C-alpha cells in the first residue's frame, strides 16, 4: 500500500457491500488510495466497477461498509453530498449543454454573480485560470457543440475542479478518444496527481494501466481480486487477475496463401445527406484467407463504405463484387444469401432487437435453414438445439435462450451478434468495431473467431478504431482519410516496426509517410 501510517489515505472504502436482487454486485470491497495517486480500477464487464463508483458518488447507498475521505467517515445520500465532500466524476457519456460555452458549462450551478445575474467575464476568467493551473488547453469562450470529444472531456474535468474536487473518478475515459487525445488526457491526469489530486480511473484496457497508473485494483465477481503496484506488474499478470486465467499467448496468425478475390470494391462513391462524397472513389479487394483492416479516425467514410457493402446504403457510383458476382444493386437478403455476414458497429440499434429473446436474436440470419423452419413454420425443437449450440460454442453467458437480450452485458451482447453472423459460415465477414466496449475476455474470443474465418480460407474486412486490434489481426491495412484510401500497409512489413501505430495514426490524420 502507498498509504503509510503517517499519511491518511485520501480515500478509503471499508467493506463496501452492494446487493441487487439476485446479485451481489460488491462483496466487501476494501480500497485505499493515497493523495496524489493515480489508481486504476480494472475488471471485466460485470465485475462491479461501475457499481462501486456509483456507491462512492452517492448514487447507490451501500448495504454495508463505510467511505472515508481523509480519514473522516462520510455518508452520501446523493451525488450532491459527494460533490460537496470533494468527489468529482467524469462520466462516460458527457453531461454538458452543447449550446452553451465552455465557461458557462463549467460554472453551471455555482455561477459567479453580479447584480444577481451570471457574470460572464468573471466566469471566463476563473475558468481560464483554472485551465492554466492544471494545464488543460481549452478556450472558455468556445461553444461546447463545436468542440471535439477530447476537449469536451477536458470541460468535464474542469467542472469537477471548479467544484474543488480532490478525488476524481473517470469512467472509461479513453473509450471515445483518439490516440493523440488519449496521450493528452494522460498528461493532464499526471499533472493533476502531481498537484495532489487523487485520480481513480475505470478501464479494461491493460496498456493504459501500465502507462498511467501507480497502482491497480482488480475486481472480479464483485470482489477485490488483487491490488498491485503497476511497476512490479505486467499486462499478463493483470490480465490473469482480471480473467482468472492466462490469455492464449499471442494470437497465432499463421501466414497463409491467399486465394481468389471474395470481395471487391471498384471506384465506389457514397454520398452523405448533403450530397458530399463521404466515400470517394474507393477500390480494394479482400481475398480468400486474409483479413483486411480498415483503419482511420471515425467519420472519414469507413462506416458509410461498410454500410454500402452490406447493402444498408446505396452507393452513387461504382461496383461491389461478392465472390466475383456483381451485387451492387441487389438486396440485403441476396447478399447474405451469397455469403456475406456483417457485425455492425451499433450492436444495440442495428445488430440486436433488445426486447427480443436471445433465441430470436440468434436465428435472424439462419431463419431459412431447414433446421429452423420447415415450410415457413418455426421448429421449436430445432431452434432450441441451434441456439443452445451457438450459446455453448461462443461461450455466451446466459441463464436461458429465452432471456431478453437487454439483460446481457455488452460483451455477451456482442457475442450474440458474432455467433449469429458466424453461424452461417460466411464467405465474407465484415466486422465493424467488433470489440468496442467489450472486456478483454470477450474481445479475445471474438478475435479468435475472426482469425478462424480467415484460416478457413474465407475473407474478413475489419473496420476498427483500435490500431492495436488492426495490427494484431490484419494481413493488409487500408487507411482511410476524408473518404479516400490514403495508404495500404502490409502486416509483415509492420510486424517488427515499433512505430507501426504511429504510422497508421499519421496517415489517418491526413499526413504523409
Amino acid at each position, binding site marked *: 500500500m502507498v498509504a503509510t501510517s503517517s499519511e491518511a489515505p485520501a480515500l478509503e472504502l471499508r467493506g463496501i457491500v*452492494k446487493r*441487487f*436482487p*439476485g*446479485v451481489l*454486485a460488491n462483496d466487501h470491497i476494501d480500497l485505499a488510495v493515497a493523495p496524489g495517486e493515480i489508481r486504476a480500477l480494472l*475488471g471485466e*464487464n*460485470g*465485475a*462491479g*466497477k*461501475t*457499481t462501486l463508483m*456509483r456507491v462512492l458518488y452517492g448514487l*447507490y447507498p451501500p448495504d454495508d461498509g463505510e467511505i472515508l475521505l481523509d480519514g473522516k467517515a462520510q455518508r452520501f445520500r446523493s451525488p450532491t453530498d459527494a460533490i460537496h465532500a470533494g468527489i468529482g466524476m467524469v462520466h462516460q457519456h458527457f453531461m454538458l449543454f452543447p449550446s452553451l460555452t465552455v465557461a458557462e458549462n463549467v460554472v453551471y450551478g455555482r455561477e459567479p454573480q453580479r447584480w444577481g445575474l451570471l457574470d460572464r467575464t468573471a466566469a471566463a476568467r476563473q475558468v481560464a485560470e483554472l485551465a492554466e493551473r492544471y494545464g488543460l488547453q481549452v478556450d472558455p469562450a468556445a461553444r461546447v457543440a463545436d468542440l471535439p470529444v477530447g476537449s469536451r472531456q477536458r470541460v468535464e474535468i474542469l467542472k469537477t475542479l471548479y467544484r474543488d474536487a480532490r478525488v476524481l473518478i473517470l*469512467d*472509461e475515459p479513453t473509450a471515445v478518444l483518439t490516440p493523440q487525445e488519449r496521450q493528452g488526457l494522460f498528461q493532464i491526469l499526471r499533472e493533476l496527481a502531481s498537484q495532489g489530486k487523487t485520480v481513480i480511473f*475505470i478501464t*479494461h484496457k491493460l496498456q493504459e494501466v501500465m502507462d498511467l497508473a501507480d497502482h491497480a485494483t482488480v475486481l472480479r465477481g464483485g470482489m477485490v481480486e488483487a491490488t498491485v503496484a503497476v511497476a512490479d506488474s505486467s499486462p499478463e499478470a493483470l490480465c490473469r487477475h482480471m480473467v482468472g486465467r492466462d490469455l492464449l499467448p499471442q494470437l497465432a496468425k499463421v501466414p497463409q496463401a491467399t486465394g481468389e478475390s471474395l470481395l471487391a470494391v471498384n471506384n465506389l462513391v457514397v454520398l452523405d445527406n448533403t450530397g458530399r462524397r463521404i466515400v470517394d472513389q474507393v477500390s480494394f479487394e479482400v481475398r480468400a484467407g486474409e483479413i483486411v483492416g480498415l483503419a482511420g479516425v471515425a467519420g472519414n467514410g469507413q462506416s458509410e463504405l461498410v454500410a454500402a457493402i*452490406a447493402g*444498408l446504403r446505396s452507393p452513387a457510383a461504382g461496383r461491389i463484387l461478392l465472390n466475383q458476382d456483381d451485387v451492387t444493386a441487389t*438486396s*440485403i*437478403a441476396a*447478399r*447474405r*444469401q451469397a455469403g456475406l455476414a*456483417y457485425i*455492425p458497429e451499433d450492436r444495440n*440499434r*442495428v*445488430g*440486436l*432487437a*433488445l*426486447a*427480443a429473446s436471445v433465441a*430470436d436474436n440468434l*436465428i*435472424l*440470419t439462419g*431463419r*431459412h435453414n431447414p433446421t429452423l*423452419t420447415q415450410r*415457413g*413454420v*418455426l421448429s*421449436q425443437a430445432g431452434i432450441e438445439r441451434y441456439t443452445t449450440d451457438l450459446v455453448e460454442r461462443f461461450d455466451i453467458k446466459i441463464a436461458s435462450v429465452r432471456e*431478453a437480450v*437487454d*439483460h*446481457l*452485458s*455488452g460483451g455477451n451482447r456482442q457475442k450474440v451478434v458474432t455467433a449469429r453472423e458466424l453461424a452461417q459460415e460466411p464467405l465474407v465477414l465484415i466486422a465493424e468495431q467488433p470489440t468496442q466496449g467489450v472486456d478483454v475476455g470477450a474481445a479475445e474470443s471474438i478475435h479468435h473467431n475472426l482469425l478462424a474465418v480467415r484460416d478457413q480460407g474465407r475473407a474478413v474486412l475489419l473496420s476498427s478504431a483500435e490500431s492495436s486490434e488492426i495490427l494484431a489481426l490484419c494481413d493488409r491495412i487500408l487507411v482511410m482519410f476524408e473518404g479516400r484510401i490514403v495508404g495500404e500497409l502490409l502486416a509483415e512489413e509492420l510486424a517488427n516496426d515499433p512505430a507501426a501505430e504511429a504510422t497508421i495514426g499519421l496517415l489517418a490524420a491526413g499526413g504523409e509517410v
Partner: protein
Amino acid sequence: MSTHRATQDGSSSSQLTQRLRPLAAPLLAVLGALVLGALLMLVTGHDPLAAYRAMFEGALGGRKLANLMATLARATPIVGMGLAITIALRGGYLNLGGEGQLVLGGLTSALVALYLPLPGWLLLPVSLVGGAVAGAAWALLATGLDRVFRVPLLIGTLLLNYPARYLASYLVNHPLRDVASGMSQTHRVPEGVELAYLVPGTRLHVGALMVLALVLVATWVVRRTRVGYELRMTGLNPDFARYGGINTVRLGFGTMAISGSIAGLVGAMEVLGTHHRFIDNALTAPLYAWTGLMAALLAGSSPLGVLAAGLFFAAVHTGGFGMERGAQVPRELSRVLQALMILLIAARSRLLTPTHRDAPAEKASSS
C-alpha cells in the same frame, strides 16, 4: 393426504401466484371502478347493488342467456377490428383506417351479393372475399401513399376514413338506395347469402366463430411461423430486421393488406350476418373500429389479449343497457360508469401484457 397436500401447495401455490399476478391489476381496476361508480350512484340517488346486479344480468344473463348472446354478438366486430389493428401493430404499423376499411368491406360485400350474377352457394363466399379485398385495397392505398409520397401511415390511414365513409354514404343515399324502404340503405341481400345465426332468436351469427378462428390462426402465425417471426422483429426493431435481410417494404404491404382485409371481412360479416343490407352509418355509429383500436392498444398487440379486451368492452356496453332497463339508471350515468371502468383498466394496461422482469443487476453491472 395432509403431507401430500402440503408438498403440492408448497410448489404449486407460488407458481399459481406468479401466474395470477398479471391478473391482479385489471381486477383491482374493475373493483376500483365499481367502487367509484357506487359512490356516483349513491350521490345521484340510485341503489348501487341493484344497479350492479342489473348490469351483470344485462351483460351475461337474460332468458336463455339472451343477454350473453347480445354481448357475444357485439364483441364479434370489436374483436375482429381489434385483431386487424393488432396484426399491423405487431409489425410496428399503426393502422388508424379500420373504419374506412370496415365500411368499404361492408359496402362491397352488399354490392356483390346484390348485383353479381352468381349461384347462391357461391355468392356468399365471393361476397365475403369481396369485402376483404376492398378493405385490403383501402389499406394498401394508405401504405402506398406512405411509400411513394411519404404521407405517414398514421395520417394516411386516418384521413382515408373520410372518403370511404362519405363515398359509401353517397352511394346508399343516391344511386343504390332502396327507395321504397324510405331509409338510407341498399336493398336486402338475396336469401341464402346471409350468414346463419348461431342461436336462433339472437343476433349472434356464424361470423363470431370466424373471428374466433382468425384470432387463433393469428396467434399461431405470429408465434410459430417465419413470417410471424419477421413481423415481430420488424415491430421490435425495424433497423435490425432490415439488416438481417428481411424485406421490410414487402412485409409492410403484406401486413397492411392482411390488416385491411380483416377489417373488410368484419364489415362483410356484419352486413351479411346482422343487417342483411348495407345501412348508412350502421357500421360507424357503434364505433366498432375505434373500440377495436382501444382493445388492441390495451392488449399490447396480442391477439388473445384482444379477444379478452373485446369481450370485456362488449360486456360493459350491454351491461350498461341492462342497468338502464333493470335499475332505471339513466343512460348518461351508465355511460360514465363504462368510461370509468375502461379508463381504470387502461391505466394499468401495461400489466396485462407480459412485462420485462426487473433487471437492476444488469444495469448495475454493465460497466
